[in-house]
């Protein structure tokens, strides 16, 4: 099912604005407005039609066509539960900025400026998002090579002169910035107003990876805060434009490496919708089960690191002890503990091995008591309460303004959960509760995540029952022309070998068109906006990362609080840098 707005309400727009085109396909619904109408159109959608939640902003480069850049805004209406996409051609590479309508657009516009070089008129601080000041190029442009421009001679220090360690080793390298350039970047982000500017991160135990915080501090209170991202920007979106749809799956693991399976499922569902592939029943149930296992896994990591940041060192190791069990399950089923490339277009790479369900049942039995242990140590602990209560309160308005999703949105009482809005796989057949918070502080987010783990257990139980019934079904619908055959078929029939060759070499020839679909990650809505031009590789993939937008509210929430609160707040927002930076 899809969430796209229906035509008749779009007709309302037609009268208001001169030449706007409305295109509605099965996978995508968009209106294209002229540059000068953009703000009014978006304002009308926001105020009058109730599309007040900002989901995503991206751009597509139609080089060498002129104007080459097309900006795409995706909005959501919490009341109608509908999505709408607004397109606008960036004539002479600039469009008006929409931060007056949505604060959440601030970083998104900076990202587009960074990667495409589109100017946003009226943006208050249009600096690079991921790369450093003084970087010469705009990487996502079509005329920029994927490998970058190898301009400096930077050989490995461990090699004897003229040694070639591997056939694909080159001593030349892309430009690596100097410390001065990074300091320049930092200066351009924030100027010192109070006593000291504290560099929190990027390589700091407490910052969950490589986020770089700048705190302008008066004593220990933070007067002003700025976040520098891009310390893990690996260019996955650029890489994806050069890969077939199947080859992108491993990279989706490495975006949000803590919830790899959820990312795979979200991506594969999008591609399947685009190709019109229907996975078999069993695959759907197994996907749901693995997703929920992964969700528990991710929440456990959150619990561990969160407790560690707040000083409860032992909880960290208890949480990791349970993670090890889930890792064992995933390793036994998929083959790798962390970045398990298990989901395939049209099903799964392998069926469940024997004994998997027994292990999962055993886990279902003994995990609840472990959860209770965590709760006994933390939930009513006075220190825990004092560190969490009324810290970083998020309200509904901010949720819509910043496009907050996932647990952060639910803690503010907004029932925004893709599993409910747009159920994929088996989510429409299982019953579970979606916990909501009333206050929206760190303590609510803590309670919600704990509750979500229990709900995931419920879902897994139902999946296990169902899968036991479906024992002998196929796990992948290889009869579909887009789906890669399994190895046995390749070994035994020449037709499927040929099909395999074709799909591997030319990729899945997706029909021309676009699609935006998303899945509910532990970190929020993980959306994929895919533009296909009918060949085996996507023309453009935009990854809408939940953590990116959730993190954006951090500076506003932390003002006037202390560093200790920054730790708590960051932990409860729970970003993963691999996903924010892609």
């Amino acid at each position, binding site marked *: 099912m899809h969430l796209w707005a229906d035509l008749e309400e779009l007709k309302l727009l037609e009268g208001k604005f001169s030449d706007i085109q409305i295109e509605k396909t099965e996978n995508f619904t968009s209106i294209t407005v002229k540059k000068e109408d953009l703000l009014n159109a978006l304002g009308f959608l926001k105020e009058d039609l109730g599309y007040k939640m900002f989901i995503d902003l991206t751009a597509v480069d139609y080089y060498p066509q002129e104007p080459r850049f097309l900006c795409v805004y995706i909005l959501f209406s919490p009341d109608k539960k509908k999505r709408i996409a607004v397109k606008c051609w960036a004539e002479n590479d600039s469009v008006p900025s929409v931060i007056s309508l949505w604060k959440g657009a601030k970083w998104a516009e900076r990202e587009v400026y960074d990667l495409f070089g589109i100017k946003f008129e009226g943006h208050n601080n249009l600096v690079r998002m991921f790369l450093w000041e003084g970087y010469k190029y705009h990487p996502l442009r079509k005329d*920029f090579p994927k490998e970058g421009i190898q301009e400096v001679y930077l050989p490995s220090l461990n090699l004897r002169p003229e040694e070639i360690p591997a056939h694909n080793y080159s001593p030349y390298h892309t430009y690596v910035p100097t*410390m001065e350039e990074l300091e320049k970047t930092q200066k351009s982000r924030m100027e010192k107003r109070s006593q000291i500017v504290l560099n929190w991160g*990027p390589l700091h135990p407490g910052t969950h990876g490589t986020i770089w915080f700048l705190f302008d501090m008066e004593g220990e209170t933070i007067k002003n805060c700025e976040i520098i991202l891009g310390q893990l920007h690996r*260019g996955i979106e650029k890489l994806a434009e050069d890969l077939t749809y199947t080859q992108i799956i491993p990279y989706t693991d490495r975006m949000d490496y803590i919830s790899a399976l959820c990312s795979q499922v979200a991506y594969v569902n999008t591609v399947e919708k685009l190709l019109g592939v229907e996975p078999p029943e069993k695959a759907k149930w197994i996907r749901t089960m693995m997703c929920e296992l992964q969700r528990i896994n991710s929440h456990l990591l959150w619990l561990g690191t969160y407790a560690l940041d707040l000083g409860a060192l032992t909880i960290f*190791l208890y949480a990791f002890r349970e993670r090890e069990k889930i890792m064992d399950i995933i390793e036994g089923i998929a083959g790798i503990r962390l970045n398990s490339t298990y989901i395939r277009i049209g099903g799964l790479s392998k069926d469940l091995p024997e004994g998997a369900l027994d292990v999962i049942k055993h886990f279902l039995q003994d995990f609840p008591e472990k959860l209770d242990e965590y709760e006994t140590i933390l939930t009513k602990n006075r220190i825990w309460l004092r560190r969490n209560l009324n810290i970083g309160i998020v309200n509904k308005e901010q949720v819509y303004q910043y496009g907050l999703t996932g647990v952060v949105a639910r803690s503010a009482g907004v029932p925004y959960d893709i599993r409910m809005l747009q159920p994929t796989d088996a989510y429409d057949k299982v019953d579970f509760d979606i916990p909501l918070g009333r206050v929206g502080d760190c303590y609510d987010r803590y309670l919600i995540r704990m509750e979500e783990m229990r709900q995931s257990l419920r879902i897994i139980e139902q999946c296990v029952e169902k899968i036991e019934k479906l024992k002998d079904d196929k796990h992948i619908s290889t009869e579909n022309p887009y789906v890669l055959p399994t190895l046995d078929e390749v070994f035994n029939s020449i037709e499927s070998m040929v099909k395999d060759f074709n799909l591997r070499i030319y990729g899945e020839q997706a029909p021309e068109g676009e699609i935006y679909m998303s899945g509910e990650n532990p970190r929020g809505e993980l959306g994929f906006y895919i533009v296909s031009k009918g060949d085996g590789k996507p023309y453009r993939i935009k990854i809408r990362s939940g953590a990116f937008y959730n993190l954006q509210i951090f500076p506003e929430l932390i003002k006037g609080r202390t560093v200790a609160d920054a730790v708590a707040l960051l932990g409860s927002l729970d970003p993963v840098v691999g996903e924010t930076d892609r």
Partner: protein
Amino acid sequence: MAVKHNNGIILTTVEEVLSWGRRNSLWPASVGLACCAIEMMHTAASRFDTDRLGIIFRGSPRQSDVLIVAGTVVNKVAPMLKLIYDQMPDPKWVIAMGGCSSAGGPFPTYATLQGVDRIIPVDVYVPGCPPTPQALLWGILELQKKIKAKKEGKVWEEIPVREVPTASQPIPIKEKSPLGF
């Protein structure tokens, strides 16, 4: 070893003792960058407890001996990594954990550093994406071997290229020396 003067022998024994102390209390600086950091945490957690080998993670590079580069190093973060390496006191070692930090891994892109050994010398490469905790532990054991063999300098002639390992069997307890590794 054939040392003529007594003091020479004394010196060597002293060196032996020091190298024993060093390789048995390797304190890594916890520099977690990406996926590998999760597996690094798992290595330190209860299942594969690095504390058994005297390895405890320190927050500050000033107090750590080995830098485990866990995860993708992008161009933007490279200078800071160099800074951290420079802040560490000698003797210091570097383990490049995972393909990304060893050679850019699956990210041959404009933004990624194609191997951390282009900015800091690396002692042990641990392939894997990410390496399992056991693989990382094996890498640490390799580093301990290297320290034992006094291969502290990054002199490539001294470093033998290991032959391809095949089946991996547990080391029987009896082969373990009472003094650790």
